[in-house]
């Protein structure tokens, strides 16, 4: 174990900071020391990773044709006024 050991209840509050590379070395080491020996925290850490992955897979919204058409109209009107041939 590292000099500074960490409890599960505190580790769960540091997952985002760990993923964002925002922890000091000592704290990061205490997490890395803890995880291999604690299935609860290891599973929790993985749950957060799965959550982030699920968020990244939210389906994109495609533009409704009606809105696309009206945005194209805006552009044509703008181009007629603003673009010098």
């Amino acid at each position, binding site marked *: 174990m590292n000099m500074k050991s960490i*409890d*599960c209840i505190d580790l769960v*509050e540091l997952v985002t900071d760990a993923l964002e590379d925002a922890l000091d070395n000592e704290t990061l080491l205490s997490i890395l020391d803890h995880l291999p020996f604690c299935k609860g925290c290891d599973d929790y850490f993985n749950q957060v990773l799965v959550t982030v992955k*699920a968020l990244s897979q939210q389906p994109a919204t495609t*533009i409704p044709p009606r*809105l*696309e058409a009206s945005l194209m109209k*805006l*552009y044509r009107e*703008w181009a007629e006024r603003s673009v010098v041939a």
Partner: protein
Amino acid sequence: MTDVDLHALRRGDERAYRAMVKEYHSALFRLALIYSPSRAIAEEAVQETWLAVLRGLEGFEGKSSLRTWICRILVNVARRRAGLESRTLPFSVLETEGEFAAVSPDLFTRTGPWPGHWKAETDDWSRLPEDKLLSRELQDVVTDAVAQLPRTQREVITLRDIEGWSAAEVFEVLGIQDGNQRVLLHRARSRVRQLLQDYLAPPVLN
């Protein structure tokens, strides 16, 4: 978006414009929904944004990327339409103060040889099949979970995790510093994780 695209846009190239409108629509619409009571009103905010983009195109100096510039305009437009302060608000202290626990303290021991450790096993999601993660039902749970978040948390998780933007880009759009972004992201992810857990393994009622 490259300088060439920007040049094409200023020249009146419809194809370049259409491609950009399509590419940015999802992010713009998702952001607009945060401030809008309906999809129709969010679409109006998107439309007003493009109008402002075209008006400002000549003056765009390229100090920020085109996409962060456009999203900033969207946020200002949508906030103004919702009756909120249109300029970037100072970071809301209300959303970082007060008690917060990523996991209910009831799930950890208070006494015994290992205080602060898990009382029971945590669900193992490592074998969750990919198609389950992509399923419409699970994705709807995620969408609903994000929609329920406090506004600033929702802004940050939308840009960082759903759209995959960097902290620097999110700062350009929302004016929230990295440290505060992490606090908001942590709270938002914790809430979404909790709701996903409730969906994947509904709590057993006694």
